[in-house]
């Protein structure tokens, strides 16, 4: 392998939350050399969660969701509207869709996810929500009385349903699951969520998939696998995502599910080597978290781009400083607490830990009452690995501590 050119910049690919946090962390950790962030979207980094909630319910603008920019970021170079198409880890180069090839001294992979789409003809009225532009396009069609079919009942699908309903739309959820948010929350809580969503006027068709989306130029109806047909003006597809790894094709990185990283967020090759000059952050990173075990997982929660971005920036800065601190920085414990929240109507969910590790028999109410406010515990082999608050917040804090300490 050839040596990287020390005069070349650190290149961060993906100009969203993960990429931003990695750049900030490099600066805060004392790296003063050049940083370039390459991002496909035209917008400077912004916060995605409000795009299915508060901001979608009012005005969708970049200003409403933009991350504040810090003084120390003044000399970071942003190459926006440019997509990475290939990378050569030996030559230390990145190729982009504007035809240019650039050298890098170190690389940060922060390309996140994109929405999966249903495999039907592209007609007007079909939407996904991952980006600001997606949310703007959808917002324009969520007019009062519009008939909206939401396909999928994960957090995102349920949030979009709630927001559309608040805007006066008629909303039907179509989902293969038995209950909404079944996979992340488990049967007990998901049943209660169905009750609450239904009480707010959201119709839920479960155990079915979409067989066809009918309409000439625009959506007219949705045909379900059981033969039912629902008239619709808008279809929102919330059926999962793909990792943006295509530009890494041809490298020897482990991209079986996202990009594998070690606990220092260094990219790991298919033969198990961690690279000191290639890092992975955010939704696309599959990394081990010793808070739970040594299994590498991707975690699509909002705190992860920040935690992994900070970690990658600190480790990379130590590598580039070459002052003997690297081994110590790598050895520092890194066990970020996964956390997420979700707002749907008056339902306020907040969780810590990994709820999805648990089977239905190991979920129990710790405090309160499911039909009102509650704290729910998720146990794996007798250890608390997750806690969910429905309405409750401060009451979760001792459980959060327990999870962090190994759940005993």
């Amino acid at each position, binding site marked *: 392998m050839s040596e990287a050119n020390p005069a070349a910049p650190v290149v961060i690919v993906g100009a969203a939350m993960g990429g931003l946090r990695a750049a900030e962390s490099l600066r805060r950790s004392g790296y003063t050399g050049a940083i370039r962030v390459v991002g496909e979207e035209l917008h400077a980094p912004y916060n995605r969660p409000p795009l299915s909630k508060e901001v979608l319910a009012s005005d969708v603008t970049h200003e409403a969701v933009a991350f504040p920019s810090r003084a120390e970021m003044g000399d970071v170079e942003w190459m926006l509207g440019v997509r990475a198409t290939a990378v050569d880890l030996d030559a230390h180069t990145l190729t982009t869709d504007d035809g240019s090839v650039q050298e890098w001294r170190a690389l940060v992979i922060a390309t996140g996810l994109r929405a999966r789409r249903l495999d039907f003809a592209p007609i007007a009225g079909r939407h996904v929500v991952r980006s600001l532009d997606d949310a703007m396009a959808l917002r324009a069609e969520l007019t009062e009385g519009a008939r909206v079919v939401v396909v999928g009942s994960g957090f995102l699908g349920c949030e979009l349903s709630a927001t559309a309903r608040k805007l006066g739309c008629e909303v039907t959820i179509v989902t293969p699951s038995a209950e909404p948010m079944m996979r992340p929350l488990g049967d007990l809580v998901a049943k209660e969520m169905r009750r609450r969503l239904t009480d707010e006027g959201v119709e839920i068709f479960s155990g079915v998939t979409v067989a066809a989306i009918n309409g000439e130029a625009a959506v007219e109806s949705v045909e379900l696998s059981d033969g039912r047909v629902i008239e619709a003006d808008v279809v929102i597809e919330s059926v999962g995502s793909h990792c943006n790894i295509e530009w890494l094709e041809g490298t020897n990185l482990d991209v079986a599910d996202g990009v594998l990283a070690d606990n220092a967020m260094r990219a790991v090759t298919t033969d198990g080597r961690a690279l000191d000059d290639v890092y992975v952050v955010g939704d696309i990173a599959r990394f081990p978290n010793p808070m739970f075990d040594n299994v590498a997982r991707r975690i699509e929660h909002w705190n992860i781009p920040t935690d992994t971005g900070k970690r990658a920036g600190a480790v990379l800065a130590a590598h580039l400083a070459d002052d003997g601190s690297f081994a110590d920085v790598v050895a520092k414990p890194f066990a970020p607490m996964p956390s997420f929240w979700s707002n749907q109507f008056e339902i306020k969910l907040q969780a810590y830990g990994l709820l999805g590790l648990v089977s239905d028999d190991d979920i129990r109410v710790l405090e309160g009452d499911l039909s009102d406010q509650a704290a729910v515990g998720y146990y794996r082999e007798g250890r608390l690995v997750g806690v969910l608050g429905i309405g409750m917040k*401060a009451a979760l804090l001792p459980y959060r501590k327990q999870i962090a300490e190994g759940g005993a």
Partner: protein
Amino acid sequence: MIKIEVDMNQCQHYGQCVFEAPDNFKLNDDDKLEYVAEAPDSERDNIEAAVDVCPMQAIRIVE
């Protein structure tokens, strides 16, 4: 001295800031955020971390 501002119209009292800067932020018994608007410069890293982790991006350092 660092001056902190929280937009209480945006704040949803998630309490993520509490872990990062416990000297300045806490959730009271009604699950509402209470905060101290000034912090010594030595707290800057913690306050910046609190700004980063706020789900509503409601916390600001006034420079």
